[in-house]
């Protein structure tokens, strides 16, 4: 069963990828969706067995590497953490697969798309089931490749190609840290097998390592390096720039990869390595700061964007920030809980946005929408549910998990915890605000699209709305159902040994005993944000422009994404291009080509011309050449060997 969960998507990808032409569009869709749905059902059964019944286990497939101390097998490690990830991945993936049948129906290369989606799912499952760091890295890179392929799926769009390359390159920075972290781990522990490492961590907690010329606490260095990897994949502040651009990909891709699963890989990785992270206060502090800053920063940008998918993308970035500062305050279970609920409602929002885009004839700019809620009531309702969950309105999924994170941050009782808490509260206000801004601008007001587009506005087909419904069920009930098990009384039994929290770090337990105002504040700011959005965009249209005019510098600072792209462009891209140009023009072109291939071939051509001149056709020239030859050889001989 466990094999089937992981390898059915691969099988689907191979069949759709290599025999797509044979199967046709319909065949490829049936194969990949069918396998994916089976995988999803099995995933839920496995969750029941592994997480709820407590049968954590590892299945070894076969040895992959065996070189001295470096031993790695292909293995499927199923514990509670993996099981949670597996249901998230398989469920969202299955929904996205089905949804794509409708969304991509006008595309020319459907089998390729389905194959990529299935391949992505396989790689993601490899990542979450890894029992050693190398297999995790394999999955990590696999999802990176799939993400690259899917962002650039419409390769005829230059922007899509640029976005795909950007995503790949920025991730490469993170992957570099991850790879260094793996090397360092092997150096320190002589193994990359996770369970073995975890057993040894306590004995290595005082070891220092020399890195970049200085002596550092070994575990801190390793954890920070690994966290850099997580930052890249999960688009944390500094390495987040690829995520908004990744919205160039088809919307189902955004929902699956850039909201629900791949971007949470970093969260998963830190949670998975919790036994290492726990021993480094510094690393945890860094994670907290980065996460809190990202949550705040991305929310500010989300308020100003006009592209419907980019708003949700920044929202994702912001929510990932929440998860990270939860990790930073050792509330791993809360982070994973939020990961799960977020996967449902964010996928729901993305697919809902996709449905809107589909209805609006591929228009993504919210300024050109408006007044369509009557025409697509179902989508409208779904977006409402998603937004309610995202804003943390009570009894929707986001309420449980987000509040838990904020309470845990407060319960950490440290300056960092309070910093994270207040950042999170600010972000929650903004989250609610931009969510309702999106809803109101998109669905209400007077139509701003052309009459022709408006006449085409239609509700999406069943194949797209049913996945929305399934995800909506998750967005409504996931928090309520999971609260007790994930972060409540049942958590110890539930998580087992999958995550480790040291004594004194147990913020999740402590979170249940925070002051009442801490529990109520998130709800209050959520509702305040919603009210604010209503006031500005619904009741007093025009206020928005006034505010923008009044705070022009701040607004344009947010609108331009804090000038991160410009900064990177100036700091890295341009110097790299300039350096590349020097190497290309001068180094390669003038020096290597000039004296190398070009020079040699020019010399060869020149000599060939001379040789042709020698071949004059006159017999006496030829005879002369022969005699000269003899004379030269003979004299050379006599001079050097005259002896």
């Amino acid at each position, binding site marked *: 069963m466990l094999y089937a969960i992981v390898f059915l998507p691969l099988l689907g990808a191979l069949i759709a990828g290599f025999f797509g032409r044979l199967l046709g569009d319909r065949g490829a869709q049936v194969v990949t969706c069918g396998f994916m749905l089976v995988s999803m059902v099995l995933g839920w059964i496995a969750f029941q067995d592994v997480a709820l019944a407590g049968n954590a286990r590892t299945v070894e497939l076969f040895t992959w590497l065996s070189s001295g101390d470096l031993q790695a097998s292909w293995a499927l490690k199923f514990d509670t953490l993996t099981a949670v990830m597996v249901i998230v991945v398989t469920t969202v993936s299955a929904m996205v697969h089905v949804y794509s049948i409708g969304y991509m129906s006008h595309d020319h290369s459907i089998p390729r798309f389905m194959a990529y989606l299935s391949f992505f799912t396989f790689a993601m499952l490899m990542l979450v089931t890894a029992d050693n760091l190398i297999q995790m890295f394999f999955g990590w890179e696999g999802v990176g490749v799939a993400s690259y392929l899917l962002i650039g799926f419409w390769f005829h769009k230059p922007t899509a190609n640029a976005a795909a390359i950007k995503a790949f390159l920025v991730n490469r920075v993170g992957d570099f840290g991850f790879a260094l972290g793996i090397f360092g781990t092997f150096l320190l522990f002589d193994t990359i097998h996770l369970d073995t490492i975890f057993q040894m961590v306590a004995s290595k907690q005082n070891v220092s390592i020399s890195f970049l010329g200085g002596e550092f606490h070994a575990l801190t260095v390793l954890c920070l390096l690994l966290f850099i990897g997580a930052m890249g994949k999960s688009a944390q502040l500094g390495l987040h720039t690829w995520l908004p651009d990744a919205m160039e990909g088809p919307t189902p891709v955004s929902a699956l990869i850039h909201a629900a699963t791949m971007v949470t890989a970093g969260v998963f990785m830190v949670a998975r390595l919790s036994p290492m992270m726990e021993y480094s206060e510094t690393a945890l502090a860094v994670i907290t700061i980065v996460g809190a800053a990202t949550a705040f920063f991305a929310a500010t940008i989300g308020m100003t964007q006009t592209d419907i998918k980019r708003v949700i993308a920044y929202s994702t970035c912001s929510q990932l920030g929440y998860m990270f500062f939860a990790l930073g305050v050792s509330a791993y279970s809360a982070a994973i809980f939020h990961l799960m609920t977020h996967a449902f409602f964010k996928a729901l929002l993305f697919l809902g946005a996709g449905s809107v885009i589909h209805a609006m004839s591929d228009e993504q700019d919210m300024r050109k929408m408006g007044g369509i809620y009557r025409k697509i009531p179902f989508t409208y309702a779904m977006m409402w549910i998603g937004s309610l969950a995202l804003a943390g309105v009570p009894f929707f999924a986001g309420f449980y998990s987000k509040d838990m994170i904020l309470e845990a941050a407060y319960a950490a009782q440290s300056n960092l915890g309070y910093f994270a808490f207040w950042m999170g509260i600010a972000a929650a206000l903004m989250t609610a605000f931009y969510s309702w801004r999106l809803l109101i601008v998109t669905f209400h007001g007077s139509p701003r699209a052309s009459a022709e587009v408006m006449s085409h506005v239609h509700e999406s087909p069943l194949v797209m709305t049913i996945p929305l419904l399934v995800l909506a069920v998750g967005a409504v009930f996931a928090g309520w159902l999971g609260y007790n098990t994930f972060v409540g009384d049942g958590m110890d039994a539930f998580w087992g040994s999958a995550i480790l929290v040291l004594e004194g770090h147990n913020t999740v337990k402590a979170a249940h005993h925070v002051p009442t105002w801490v529990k109520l504040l998130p709800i209050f700011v959520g509702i305040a944000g919603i009210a604010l959005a209503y006031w500005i965009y619904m009741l007093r249209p025009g206020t928005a422009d006034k505010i923008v005019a009044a705070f022009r510098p701040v607004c344009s600072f947010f609108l331009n994404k804090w000038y991160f792209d410009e900064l990177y462009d100036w700091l890295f891209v341009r110097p790299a291009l300039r350096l590349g140009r020097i190497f290309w023009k001068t180094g390669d072109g003038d020096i290597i080509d000039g004296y190398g291939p070009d020079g*040699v*071939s020019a010399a*060869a*051509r020149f*000599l*060939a*011309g001379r*040789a*042709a001149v*020698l*071949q004059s*056709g006159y*017999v006496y*020239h*030829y*005879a002369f*050449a*022969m*005699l*000269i*030859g*003899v004379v*030269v*050889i*003979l004299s*050379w*001989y*006599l001079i050097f*060997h*005259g002896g």
Partner: protein
Amino acid sequence: MMTTTLPVMMPAMAEIFLAAAGMALLMYGVFTQRDGQSEGTAWGTIVAMLVAAGLVIIYGGPVAGEPAFYGQFATGHFTQFAKVLILVGAAVAVWMSVRYMRAESSNRFEFPVLVLFATIGMLVMVSANDLIALYMGIELQSLSLYVIASIRRDSLRATEAGLKYFVLGAVSSGMLLYACSLIYGFSGTTQFAGLATVLTGEATPLGLIVGLVFLISGLAFKISAVPFHMWTPDVYEGAPTPVTALFAVAPKIAAVCLILRTMMGPFGGLIADWQQVITLISIASMVLGAIAAIQQTNLKRLMAYSSIGHMGFALVGVAAGNQAGAQAVLIYMAIYLFMNVGTFAVILSMRKEGRYVENIADLAGLNKSHPLMALAMLIFMFSMAGIPPLAGFFSKWYVFFAAIEAGLFGLAVIGVLASVVGAFYYIRIIKVMYFDEAEAPLDSKISREMRIIMGFTAVVSLLFFILPAPVVDQAAAAAQTLFTN
């Protein structure tokens, strides 16, 4: 009073048979000649050559005691190997000529017979065990080839080519004779065995060195090594294509084997002296062969430079001066035979509206009109360029390996570089075949014998690496005989 005993003749059975067959065929030709009907003599020649090859294998092996004809005529594994290659090359050349000669209505019965006599000369060259026998063999070969080169008397280009070849050949013969007389004068013997005992490398008289240089020059002319190569492009281009095919193969093999035998045998003691001369000639040939071919537009001219280059590579093995080198040269010549015959079969299949064409540009679009022929040519060209795993790669690999074994690193490096430059023009032909558009396609009909030859040689070139043992083992045995007596 002199008592005359009949010389030992059995080892020379093949040559004797060929000579008799040649005269018989001449008679047959004279008496049955009807307007341009020479196919009878051609087929007779082919059969005679194949029979001779059989005789070589049966009788041409090593003999106990004194070699045939009072020591003038040596036989052994080496000569067997070389002679079989020569006979096969010559026979295939005649086979390829039949249809061409008919089409170009230069159908003279003398042509196959002349080839046959030239072949006898080559066989004698290979077996020569005495300077006089050597000279006799070379002259028999050369005189026949001069005539063959201008067999089309009504063609200006062919007669010009023949005349040039003759004049320059006469110069080289003169050098050779001078060399022989100098060597005889300073050593007192013409016998190879005698020379080998006299020339030990200690206190070699200067005159002998001069003789040696002249000898090498004379022989270098025959294999068209630089700077004695000037005749080659003109003759290759001017002569009828089957004649060029013959020139490119059989005499080259004979002359290279002759150089190998003389250098390793009688002059083996002077290796320190001739090694540098051969190295120099080898480098010059490789470099010129690679560079001068770049600008050629005529396929036959290109093949001339190609063969100059190949001879340079073969000389690398000679320069090595060891058993591995000799073996490498023999392997090289065997593979060279196959690649060249195949390439000429392609050239001989290039016709437009019934007329033979020979420019590189005429190959344009070959891939579309004759995919199999293009594929065969691709194999030959890649093989000649020395691309693994084709046969041509191994032939080069063996000679370079031998050179490195002998410590001639510079020579090996230059050889590799020259083969890189040379790869350019081979690959350009492939580019023309596969990527250029044809103005007018070549005629679609390709005769059966050409298809057989092309197919067989292409398969050999392609699959040599699977079963190299027959050639390599035979060459090893042949090379060994050079060093044991």
